[in-house]
């Protein structure tokens, strides 16, 4: 194979160093790919749902992460297989696009692959399977649209939003205080949301964590929290009605970009330079003082002398504040970021009702609260928790909840969770299958089966009899023609997801089905895998 001959009988090489490469072709390649995809899905399967388990991941440097967020697990899993990497990508794109449902999408793709394998064994061509899946996914997405419900909320009545966020949080370790966290997330999103344009810039919500205290101490701060303290230990710890100068230039003598040398060859020059230097520091501080600033926040460091001058003139200052935080402070306080001292004007100062330093625990950890800002469009969620892993996991969970709230503001439609939407789609797809002539019909039916696997996994993880529960719910949905019945994971006693208040966003669900179908199509179309056997 590696060697072919042209019309003159001369050999030429098609594949270089073939003996060092492994090659899988045709049905073998497809089977191998499917197996790899399934293996990844199997890992995540047990993390699905409110009773899903966590994974413990040990990173290359020995750091430990405990999570049940699909995207995080896959990201840190150190995957080598190409198809497995595709699955990782899949979950990541769901994370970017929607932010939630990253586990579900992989489980869905795994189920689709499993069904595809069965169809392959029947001798159906992979492309036909792919096409069948495509049709089926369209049916499913349309059906989701049909069964979705819109609900109304506004700034004062955000209960439905909280309920949806709670559904997301209930599968995480933080479900102990999901109610309060969901409220925090919703309030944060509403604070920064542009309800007119139906858009939310999540960059305006800063999520900050500090080890210690309880999860219950997590709070929403209408302002900014900076993990820094005052540059001089004797500066005041609390400033009311602060006028903040936000600087990106250091309190140091200027450093021109062009290379230069100042030569000192006489005593007079030495003297002048010395005077110049002193004057320079003096001017810098004076400028800040002149425009009426009562607090200086600077991206860079201060010289010792400048620091003392600031202290001396009673001008508290914070140094080494990161660029992102600086921007947030500027947004929140309505100030402008000033790159040069000459450009400082009173209008460019930010305003905040209260700036205070707060210390935590027995170690000297201090943080700076900037509150009651002129423009409350930037908020901070401050997470406390028993240990570092808890904080990290809470951050991820809050991120998911924020994304869900944002999606709801963009699009008010919801579907019912607990597998109810999947079961409804499965029924619809199954019914639609009969209408398609041709081989695709089988693929469409397989799609319906695959949809069932999500509620099945839910039931399995909750310790219920999977097949029994699923068939009961399915027949209930069909009989009463109501798409709200799902798996009763929490053992509440009812299958009606409306009563249990388990909602998911419509776009999240649609995206899951579309993304999973796309990836599966891509995997099915591969019929030749050439890889270096070792390197």
């Amino acid at each position, binding site marked *: 194979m590696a060697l072919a001959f042209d019309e003159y009988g001369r050999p030429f090489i098609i594949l270089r160093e073939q003996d060092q490469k492994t090659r899988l072709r045709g049905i073998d390649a497809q089977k191998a790919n499917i*197996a790899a995809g399934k293996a990844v899905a199997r890992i995540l399967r*047990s993390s699905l749902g409110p009773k899903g388990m966590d994974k413990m991941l040990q990173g290359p440097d020995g750091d430990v992460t*405990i999570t049940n967020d699909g995207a995080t697990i896959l990201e840190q899993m*150190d995957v080598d297989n190409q198809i497995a990497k595709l699955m990782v990508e899949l979950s990541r794109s769901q994370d970017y696009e929607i932010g939630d449902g990253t586990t579900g999408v992989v489980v869905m793709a795994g189920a689709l692959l499993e069904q595809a394998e069965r169809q392959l064994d029947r001798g159906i061509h992979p492309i036909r399977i792919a096409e069948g899946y495509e049709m089926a996914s369209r049916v499913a997405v349309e059906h989701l649209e049909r069964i979705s419900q819109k609900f109304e909320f506004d700034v004062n009545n955000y209960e439905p939003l909280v309920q949806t966020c709670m559904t997301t949080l209930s599968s995480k370790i933080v479900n102990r205080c999901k109610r309060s966290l969901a409220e925090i997330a919703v309030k944060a999103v509403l604070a920064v949301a542009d309800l007119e344009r139906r858009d939310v810039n999540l960059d305006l919500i800063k999520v900050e964590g500090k080890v*210690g205290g309880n999860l219950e101490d997590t709070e929403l701060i209408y302002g900014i929290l900076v993990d820094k303290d005052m540059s001089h230990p004797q500066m005041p710890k609390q400033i009311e009605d602060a006028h903040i100068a936000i600087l990106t230039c250091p309190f140091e003598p200027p450093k021109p970009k062009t290379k230069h040398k100042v*030569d000192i060859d006489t005593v007079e020059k030495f003297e002048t*330079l010395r005077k110049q230097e002193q004057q320079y520091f003096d001017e810098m501080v004076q400028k800040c003082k002149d425009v009426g600033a009562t607090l200086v926040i600077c991206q860079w460091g201060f010289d*010792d002398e400048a620091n003392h001058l600031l202290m001396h003139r009673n001008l508290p200052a914070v140094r080494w504040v990161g660029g992102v935080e600086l921007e947030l402070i500027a947004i929140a306080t309505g100030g402008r970021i000033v790159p040069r001292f000459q450009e400082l004007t009173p209008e460019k100062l930010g305003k905040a009702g209260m700036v205070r330093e707060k210390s935590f625990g027995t170690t000297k950890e201090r943080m700076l609260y900037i509150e009651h800002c002129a423009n409350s469009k930037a908020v901070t969620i401050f997470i406390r928790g028993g240990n570092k892993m808890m904080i990290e996991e809470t951050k991820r969970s809050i991120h998911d909840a924020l994304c869900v709230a944002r999606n709801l503001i963009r699009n008010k439609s919801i579907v019912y969770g607990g597998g109810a939407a999947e079961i409804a789609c499965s029924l619809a797809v199954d019914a639609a299958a009969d209408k398609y002539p041709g081989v695709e019909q089988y693929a469409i039916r397989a799609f319906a089966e695959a949809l069932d696997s999500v509620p099945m996994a839910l039931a399995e993880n909750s*310790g219920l009899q999977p097949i029994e529960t699923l068939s009961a719910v399915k027949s209930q949905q069909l009989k009463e023609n109501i798409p709200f019945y799902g798996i009763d994971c929490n053992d509440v006693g009812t299958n009606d997801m409306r009563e249990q208040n388990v909602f998911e966003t419509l776009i999240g669900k649609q995206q899951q089905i579309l993304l999973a179908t796309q990836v599966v199509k891509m995997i099915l179309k591969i019929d030749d895998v050439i890889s270096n056997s070792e390197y």
Partner: protein
Amino acid sequence: MPIDKIFKDDANEEKGERARMASFIGAMAVADLVKSTLGPKGMDKILQSTGRGHSVTVTNDGATILKSLHIDNPAAKVLVDISKVQDDEVGDGTTSVVVLAGELLREAEKLVTSKIHPMTIIAGYRMAAECARDALLKRVMDNKEDAEKFRSDLMKIAMTTLCSKILSQDKEHFAEMAVDAVFRLKGSTNLEAIQIIKKPGGSLRDSFLDEGFILDKKIGIGQPKRIENAKILVANTAMDTDKVKIYGARVRVDSMTKVAEIEGAEKEKMKDKVNKILAHGINCFVNRQLIYNFPEELFADAGVLAIEHADFEGIERLGLVTGGEIASTFDNPESVKLGHCKLIEEIMIGEDKLIHFSGVAMGQACSIVLRGASHHVLDEAERSLHDALCVLSQTVNDSRVLLGGGWPEMVMAKEVDELARKTAGKKSHAIEAFSRALVAIPTTIADNAGLDSAELVAQLRAEHHNQGCNAGIDVISGAVGDMEERGIYEAFKVKQAVLLSATEAAEMILRVDEIITCAPRRREDRM
């Protein structure tokens, strides 16, 4: 069709039962390791570092032991982490939290083998933890109003904390010191203001609390050794050659005479600076950075005490106690706040000379001088004292206290047991297990003291059946006794943190059903 592998070469994956086993065993191993240090009769551990010098630490502080362990098991790392957090947050109870989490996992393991789903166990544990906390809340005592009583509470807490440490011989002496020091802070938790100076020699009993401030530095030669009514300027400035800070400046000369001239100018500049400093009308100058010979001489001429190279914390503390501000420029002598103290003198502790500032303006800070036979003893004494100070400063803010000696655990266990009886469903097994884990703490205390734990705990349980009983294990007499009479108290905040973080950690480890270990990052061989 078997898939070859989806992970990288060295990465591995453990699933289901095996993963759970691995994490349980790891966590329990860590808990067992520190278990023997629990309680007043707990034993110490020797830790030898693998670094250069193989330095040795002898300690019975849980956090210190765990910090120095090299652990590969991820679940064990979770436990190390909670003990570290406990140390940061409340300072004490670092061993208890690990032991309790270990016991919770040990009980959970039994439940898992009898086919109870981990989620059910978690649900049960949560209910139990909530109930246990309520039980404690019902029994807390708060003496904030009564200053006299509050102080005696603090004394008792300090003694309870110290009795498990190396300081137990002189616990009253040290408890007194710790309580005095914390009272000086007036409610702030800033322990930086309490300076601990360790000087080998003498015995632990010779340690003392000093009202003033002690700086571990020597007074420059030819400068006064004793100053009364000192005016102190605390500074952070370069007193060697004051460099020109304008970027790119350099000296370029063409003859030797010019070099001499510039050197002269430099000297002049230094002299100027010294004169400016002297213009503040001070008689003591403390700098964070080095003071070179030339300025030192100038200071000596002016009869000013100059102290160089006081480290950053020393400077900050000195600023705090004397009420002066830390200065870096000296152009406006009239507006710089100077620090004041009544007397500066050189004192001797052991063989070392130290500088002692007494009669300081602000009474917040103080120094504790620890004396002891060796460095190991001193290090351990410092850690113990630190624990006591942490607990006390936290208690000043949250003045609720509990009895000690296994009393809180028994109170919680009783309530939790009752809850288990009322709860229907599989959860009740988990709740019962929680109460067993709680009882494990008094059991361990008794075991470590070489007492008959089974007998004592049973007796204790019977005692606790009566309402409002104060019984706990009295390790000294080896019997069940009234904790209130014996004066064994603990801070509520510590107990609550132990309970909540141990439950949280156990929950976290229980939820795991798969461990994926990445390939260790390859390091270049630096040979």
